[in-house]
């Protein structure tokens, strides 16, 4: 009885959160670009037409049955069945594992959306809200992995940026006309040719506040990037690169695993110095072990290279020479076009042709990359899927950005609180509400497993 509802709503836009393997199977062992391309529309349209309804439904049958509630309305039922991660605990986000891991790109889109929103305002309250939103999502959804710990570093970097901005403002002055003088520093006399540059002099409250707003904006941008860094697995992100860039991606991944190994080497060799009766600290110790560490790193890289070679790294498909040459021409031509286009955009006289050339070049380069990917025989093992949760996460970031840009039109004053007649910044209601949308990932992204207690 439960078989019918599952297979019936073929057109029902139930998001297929975790399509079991058979749904993705039909892709034969073809080029790497194809299965990828095929999968995306599937997500977009909310599910591929079911290749084997009976088999799939049969496989799933026990699951809804154990759920208990009879399928009163077929639509409701099938959504629950398809939305399996949600099914167990209502709308609660599932525990993260490999199958439902959020696409790394989604986190980046979300974070870039927040960053874009941050770049549109200098209102410290809104910026603070953005930082709070990013921080909260990181706090509830980050894993225990090394890159997840980078968030703290980014926060510190942001604070440093604010501090530097303030110091510069104090030392070098500011063009902001201000009336409330906080302190007057002795001004260093500068020669004529350095006109327009000031060192020391009056420090006004307005100028400090301006610098603070400005620095806070930059710091918020950095913190948003830090959030993406902490939430998205960089190795997985690199795995999502187009096939033609695969080699570069592997190089980065190998380098990332090398760095910790080298640090471990340094520590080991430094402690080993104690065994020879030499102090383990100091500059000399580091210098002396430099050579062995480099030798070790070199040996390890040779070993990894041998291992990769023996495991089929660099196997390429034979492609007709025509395709090869077209690839080269497209990539080179495209890159040239991008250069020329950007020049045109920046130079005053070329504004007319700049944009089309840039876009054309970009398209050509991307086409070249896609074509180059055909030389790759490699396939991808369990790539992160862009499922509904990824859409929600990425979408929430994008919506924040769009709403903030819109808000700039209807409430410019609220987004950029006045400095020269110094005003207390107010929290504009709608932009603040828009920023809060960025919290969505904290509820929809899969929950990372708790770190082991030991």
């Amino acid at each position, binding site marked *: 009885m439960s078989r019918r509802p599952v297979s019936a709503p073929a057109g029902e836009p139930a998001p297929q959160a975790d399509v079991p*393997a*058979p749904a*993705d*199977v039909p*892709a*034969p*062992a073809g080029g*790497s670009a194809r*299965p990828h391309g095929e999968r995306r529309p599937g997500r977009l349209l909310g599910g591929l037409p079911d290749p084997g309804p009976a088999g799939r439904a049969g496989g799933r049958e026990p699951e809804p049955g154990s759920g208990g509630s009879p399928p009163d309305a077929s639509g409701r039922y099938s959504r629950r069945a398809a939305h399996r991660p949600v099914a167990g605990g209502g709308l609660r986000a599932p525990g993260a*594992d*490999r199958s439902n891991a959020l696409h790394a790109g989604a986190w980046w889109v979300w974070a870039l959306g927040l960053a874009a929103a941050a770049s549109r305002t200098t209102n410290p309250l809104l910026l603070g809200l953005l930082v709070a939103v990013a921080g909260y999502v990181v706090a509830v959804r980050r894993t225990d*992995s090394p890159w997840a710990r980078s968030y703290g570093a980014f926060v510190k970097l942001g604070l440093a940026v604010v501090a530097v901005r303030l110091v510069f403002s104090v030392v070098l002055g500011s063009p902001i006309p201000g009336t409330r003088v906080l302190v007057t520093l002795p001004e260093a006399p500068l020669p004529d040719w350095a006109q327009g540059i000031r060192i020391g002099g009056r420090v006004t409250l307005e100028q400090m506040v301006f610098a603070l707003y400005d620095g806070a904006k930059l710091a918020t941008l950095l913190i948003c990037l830090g959030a993406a860094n902490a939430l998205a697995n960089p*190795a997985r992100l690199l795995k999502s690169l187009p096939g033609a860039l695969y080699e570069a991606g*592997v190089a980065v*991944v190998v380098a*990332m*695993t090398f760095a*910790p*190994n080298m640090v471990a080497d340094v520590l*080991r*060799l430094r*402690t*080993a*110095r*104690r*065994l*020879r*009766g*030499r*102090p*383990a600290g100091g500059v000399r110790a580091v210098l*002396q*072990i430099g*050579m*062995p560490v480099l*030798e070790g790193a070199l*040996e*390890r890289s040779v*070993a*990894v*290279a*041998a*291992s*990769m*070679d*023996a*495991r*089929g*790294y*660099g*196997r390429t*498909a034979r492609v007709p020479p025509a395709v090869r040459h077209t690839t080269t021409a497209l990539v080179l031509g495209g890159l040239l076009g991008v250069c020329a286009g950007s020049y045109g955009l920046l130079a005053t006289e070329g504004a007319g042709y700049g944009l089309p050339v840039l876009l054309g070049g970009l398209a050509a380069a991307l086409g070249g990359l896609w074509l180059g990917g055909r030389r*790759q*025989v*490699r*396939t*991808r*093992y*369990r790539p992160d899927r862009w499922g509904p949760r990824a859409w929600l996460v990425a979408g929430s970031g994008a919506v924040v950005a769009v709403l903030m840009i819109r808000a700039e039109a209807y409430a410019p004053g609220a987004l950029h609180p006045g400095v020269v007649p110094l005003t207390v910044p107010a929290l504009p209601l709608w932009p603040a509400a828009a920023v809060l949308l960025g919290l969505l990932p904290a509820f929809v992204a899969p929950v990372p497993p708790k770190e082991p207690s*030991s």
Partner: protein
Amino acid sequence: MICFENVSVTYGGAGAAPTVAGVDLTVPEGELVLLVGPSGVGKSTLLGAVSGLVPHFTGGTLRGRVTVGGRDTRTHRPRELADLVGTVGQDPLAHFVTDTVEDELAYGMESLGLAPPVMRRRVEETLDLLGLAELRDRPLATLSGGQRQRVAIGSVLTPHPKVLVLDEPTSALDPAAAEEVLAVLQRLVHDLGTTVLMAEHRLERVVQYADRVVLLPAPGEPPVAGAPADVMAFSPVRPPVVALGRLAGWSPLPLSVRDARRRAGDLRTRLAGADAGAARRTGPAVHPKDAPWCAPGARDGSGARATPSAPATSPVSAPAPPPGGTDASGAGATGTGATGTDASPTGTGGTGTAAPGTAGTAGTAGTTGTASTTGTAAPGGPASRTPAAAPRGRRAAGKRGLSALFPWPGRGLPARDGAPDEETHDPTVLAQAARLGVRHGRVEALRRVDLVVRPGETVALMGRNGAGKSTLLGSLVGLVAPASGTVRVGGRTPHRTPPAELVRRVALVPQEPRDLLYADTVGAECAAADTDAGAAPGTCREIVSALLAGVADATHPRDLSEGQRLALALAIVLTARPPLLLLDEPTRGLDYAAKSRLVTVLRGLAAEGHGIVLATHDVELAAEIADRVVVLAGGEVVADGPTADVVVSSPAFAPQIAKVLAPQPWLTVAQVEAAL
């Protein structure tokens, strides 16, 4: 499947001698072929030639023809053989390309362009086949040695290669992990028909699984192939069980413990009459005057070291040496009796021949004897209570604050010594750890570890990978600071002692001896060692010459073989003449010849009065030189006693000879030979 036709490989210029020459060899499908031979005969080269890494990757000149599954390695680069040959090198960490187990298993298939559903299925199958399912999401860096090796094997298995090439797959593993890996290989050969070509130094672990053995007798000499028993008959490298078979004149030679046991009835009767004392003379002698077991007195003393009373305890217990000696060995017998080894009564020292019942009384006497010195109010009780009594004593000694409340008889002792430990420390104790705890972050690497090392004593630390052996050694040389408890080496606290002073008290040869070598030449290394140790110029060079004849001053340490490098590192740390010598995994990568040289050197050092502690997985080495074996598990000491007692009862740590001749207490071929 694999076919070598008149293959020779030469590295370097045209004039260089070939590393391997005249190799004519065919490995049929589905065989497990074991490549044996001393170090440096070109085993790795031959293995590399199968996967095409030699000469495509390593350089050098390969003459002749190597075909694998019909593909000529001359025309096929390693990547084009990747679907046919799976290669696992000596160091699994250097083999990994990705960062998690599951990705690593899939990597090879991704490169080959297998369809995603196929990859998924094979990864799941391989996870089950190798018992890795629970580790699937783990970062590779967090795996233990055995797990890493299994992941490495799994990662080359997923593309379903027809040939598996393994270079020393079990050398770095503890016995149990090695069993895991070998069981997997067995399964591959039997169930999947995979052809396996494997080089391994630890023949005792693998020879019984081989269908055929290929012996490379010397560099540049053609290999000899044949049935394992036939090749072992004249092989210069052989496991103890084969050596025993040769000694007893069995034919065909036994390869496994089971074979040998079925033949050994006769030998056992012959040996039953032999003097077990002979074994003690040649083998792991239990020093009669040094307590073989951490005697309760010593243990309590070590516990008391937490308080300044420690030095004083020893003098008090010293005046009564005869009972002290008895209770020591009595306690030893009791302790091992508890672990179920009363089957080997002759294994313990002179008094150890006592039946469990007598041992019990001895133990009781021991407890009462020590009770008076440390104030433990544990009266004589049944033997089984003895081990419990000792901890109580230690606990009491550790709680100094509480002791003020209770009038312990021994409480007067702390008052006696105000002098620093330096002068009063007991010269019969080289190193002492008392209730030692070490933490690495959240992980408790060691918990309440007690250890005493005396001059002339050789202690083997055993236990699986990650049990805390290296950490214990590290804390004895001050590389690791204790989180709780105390460590004393030569009366000093190692991690607070300046390195330059500490090298005169204790020396450690790390797992990778290369870590100790910085200079470009052996000569420069020796000169640096002399300055480091403040020894007369030439001291180190003398030791090097003694340990390592025929190595020129100008040689680069990197050009030395594994065994030579170990000897050089040993010489360097011995330059400061430390009374205590620690070795971490010294036989890793050593062949039998290098190992026996090391054994000779270590025996000589022990005879000179050095205390030696070695952390090792090599049960044969432990059987050969250790007086005492300490087994660690999860950072705790789970067994501590004379080698014969600890090792014979354990299925994992028993050497082959012990397994063959059990219940008799023979451990090594040399002992048997001396007895016959």
